[in-house]
């Protein structure tokens, strides 16, 4: 855990329990004063009174030992003891007064100190924010336990005006081609204010979009070898051209580039990629352990990954039989249609590479 740094006045000497100790010391001091007064009273017998004084000192010593043994703050007993030995009742009174004057402790002091001690003890636990940042730095972390954020497309079509505005603000500040269908829906919205706001966003992102499309067209001239990457490239380019926000000439170049990239992929190459991508997707999400995948495929006639949904259904039935409902919930969340499971659930990542995902028909 990364605790807040405690203010220095909370970290050093503190006054926990001092007031009570001060009162005890003051009472003892008063008693001692009485003893001293009796010494000076004419006709008083000094010897028994000095014995009483010695008993008081012994009591203070016992108090000091007790406090030390219990691990409490021994400042006042020490002062009282030293004061009594050095200056008799005056010393004890001074110690008592100091204890009474010490300020009261803050209610949150123990918590602050705990944080401080945890810090200086070099605790290895991390707070949730640091943990999430770490995940993001390492790669991407899908928070499967969390409810996915609402679909922006749904918000545009049936959401509250404030939701539409917030979504448009996010699109403007962190533009990504996957937002283009949402922007298109906003531009065609029945609400005039939404249309105007969408137009402002469109005006703002247009130059970024143009540059992006030009860069993607350039990439298409020398496409990556991996089929998935090529498909992702084509799919992103298609999103851009379908938005209607790309001028006709650039859109035509983009369409030609898409044809060239996709046309270069052979049928068998595509089938193999689809199967691999599906399997990889389920496995990389950690939803189905590899052994389980094989087990789920076993009852089926073909071990090839040609029908992933069927295998997933089989796996789900197995989970129900075993009573592994948490795993079942994760699978179901993952298996939701893409439209209701937007990429936006990957929080903290505003611009990510398009995940190579086969299109759902």
């Amino acid at each position, binding site marked *: 855990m990364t605790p807040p740094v405690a203010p220095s006045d909370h970290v050093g000497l503190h006054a926990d329990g001092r007031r009570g100790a001060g009162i005890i010391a003051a009472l003892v001091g008063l008693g001692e004063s009485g003893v001293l007064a009796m010494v000076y009273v004419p006709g008083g017998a000094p010897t028994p009174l000095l014995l009483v004084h010695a008993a008081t000192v012994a009591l203070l010593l016992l108090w000091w030992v007790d406090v030390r043994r219990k691990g409490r703050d021994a400042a006042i007993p020490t002062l009282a003891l030293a004061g009594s030995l050095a200056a008799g009742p005056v010393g004890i009174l001074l110690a008592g007064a100091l204890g009474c004057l010490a300020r009261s402790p803050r209610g949150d002091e123990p918590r602050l100190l705990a944080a401080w001690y945890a810090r200086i003890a070099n605790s290895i636990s991390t707070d949730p924010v640091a943990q999430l940042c770490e995940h993001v730095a390492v790669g991407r972390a899908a928070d499967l336990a969390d409810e996915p954020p609402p679909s922006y497309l749904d918000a545009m079509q049936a959401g509250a005006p404030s939701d539409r505005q917030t979504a448009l603000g996010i699109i403007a500040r962190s533009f990504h081609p996957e937002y283009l269908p949402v922007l298109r829906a906003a531009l065609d919205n029945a609400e005039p204010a939404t249309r*105007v706001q969408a137009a402002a966003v469109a005006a703002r992102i247009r130059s970024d979009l143009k540059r992006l499309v030009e860069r993607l067209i350039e990439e298409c001239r020398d496409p990556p070898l991996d089929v998935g990457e090529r498909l992702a490239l084509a799919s992103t380019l298609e999103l851009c051209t379908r938005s209607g926000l790309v001028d006709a000439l650039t859109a035509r170049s983009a369409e030609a580039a898409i044809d060239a990239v996709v046309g270069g992929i052979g049928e068998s190459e595509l089938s193999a990629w689809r199967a691999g991508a599906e399997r990889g997707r389920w496995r990389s999400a950690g939803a189905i352990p590899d052994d389980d995948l094989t087990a789920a495929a076993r009852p089926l006639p073909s071990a090839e990954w040609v029908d992933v949904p069927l295998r997933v259904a089989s796996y789900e039935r197995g989970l129900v039989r075993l009573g592994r409902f948490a795993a079942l919930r994760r699978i179901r969340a993952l298996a939701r249609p893409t439209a209701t499971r937007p990429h936006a659930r990957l929080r903290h990542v505003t611009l990510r590479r398009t995940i190579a995902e086969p299109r759902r028909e």
Partner: protein
Amino acid sequence: MSAVRQRADKHGPERATDISILVEGCYPYVPGGVSAWIDWLIRAHPGLSFSVVALWPRPTNQQPRYALPPNVTALHHLYLQDFGGLVRQRPLPVRDLEELATALDDLMMIGGKARLGELTRRLASLRGDYDIADLFNSPAAWDLARRMYHTEMPYGSFLHFFWAWRALAGGLLATCGFKLPEAKVYHCISTGYAGILAARAALETGRPAILTEHGIYTNERRIELLMADWVADTVDKGHALDDPRFDLRDMWVKAFEAYARTCYETASEIVTLYEDNQRAQRALDAPRERLTVIANGIDPKRFEGVKPPPVDARPTMALIGRVVSIKDVKTFIAAAHALKPRVPGLRALIAGPLDEEPAYSAECKAFAAELGLDGTVEFAGPVNVVDHLSLIHVVVLTSLSESQPLVLLEAGAAGIPFVATNVGSCREIIEGRSDESPPLGAGGYVTGLVAPGETADAVYRILTDPVHRRRLGETLRARVLRYYSADRAVDAYQSLYRRHMEAATTQTDPMEAA
């Protein structure tokens, strides 16, 4: 601070005027749009005297772009962000501080007439000991900011909160400390700080305040703020749309909504250019019974001599307007490109200044050239609209945003059908208002935004069917003559001013009323 640096450039002895125009960030320093409208409004009422309060962030060296008409007797300046230096004052008593912080917070976050009254009363009670302008730079202001921070967003960054608070509260206190010019009626041309000033004037003087909104100021600010990179996100909301935690963007937006709410509640009449705008006004509690539409108008006589193009004229579509990105000229060019094979001899005229966004103009020219439209698309530069209208078959507007485009009224007055995107009042002018009686029908087509295909189809129908074209043109002309003549707009404002000036004389104690 602004209230201290209030300045009046007088054109004559300072005296109470009939109307005081309160305007933020335009007249008389910015040309076009709302400024041109204010100039028209003042000149259209030579019998009334006007003063103008120009609200600006801070003093600039800008030169006025409009010569003040003779019936303007004073030009005042209210500077919203012109903060002075640190002022050492004795601290405010805790109770005063708490009450002032609450009043300020309430007005900034909720708004309303009563809350403005409360704040002005609190400030007035301090006036003996504290100058409002100085108060803002005193340790007391620091305490106010801290208290509001703890109330509104104690989990956020105080540093960012402080600067946002300083900008918002500074403008508000400047507006509250400004010495109001004397007038019978206060007329603000937007909500925001001008709206707060008008509301304050109505509360303190008992004179009526009227509001004319061209665009909806709150909507414009809202999208500007939601897109702004200069507003720090101090609360990480990820991609959630409904996260209830309050952040700086929310604070800005809420403040402008609160200002609008205050102005709407206080204004005696709320005028807008077209019906659609009233939806946004009603959403911020503008009382329905005080909402009015007064459309801008043109002088139809100027277009009486415009004749339809000769039979053998090249089929011509035209975009008349500045070549700037907000007009989305590229969609017009793309539509021309789609039409070219369908309409032999097509001419696509772009008539308007090219120097406002030179880079965009250059892109448009390059785009037309790339599409092989050299003989089709013509960039004519600024033109006299009346001279060109008799060569045009259909006028097209592909704008991303408009309020009430004059070119639509001018084309309509000349009997030329129109194709426009669904922005501002275009649909209302082309298809008629919901309460049009008897309904006149359509004067053209309304298309989606950034939809060159739709635009091309609409233009095709008009260009290839002369009878249909004539019918659309006549309908649009009839509507413009009936609802959008300048005389009608002048009469409406004359009546509005007269009504409220008369009401002003019967008002009693304004603060009591508040």
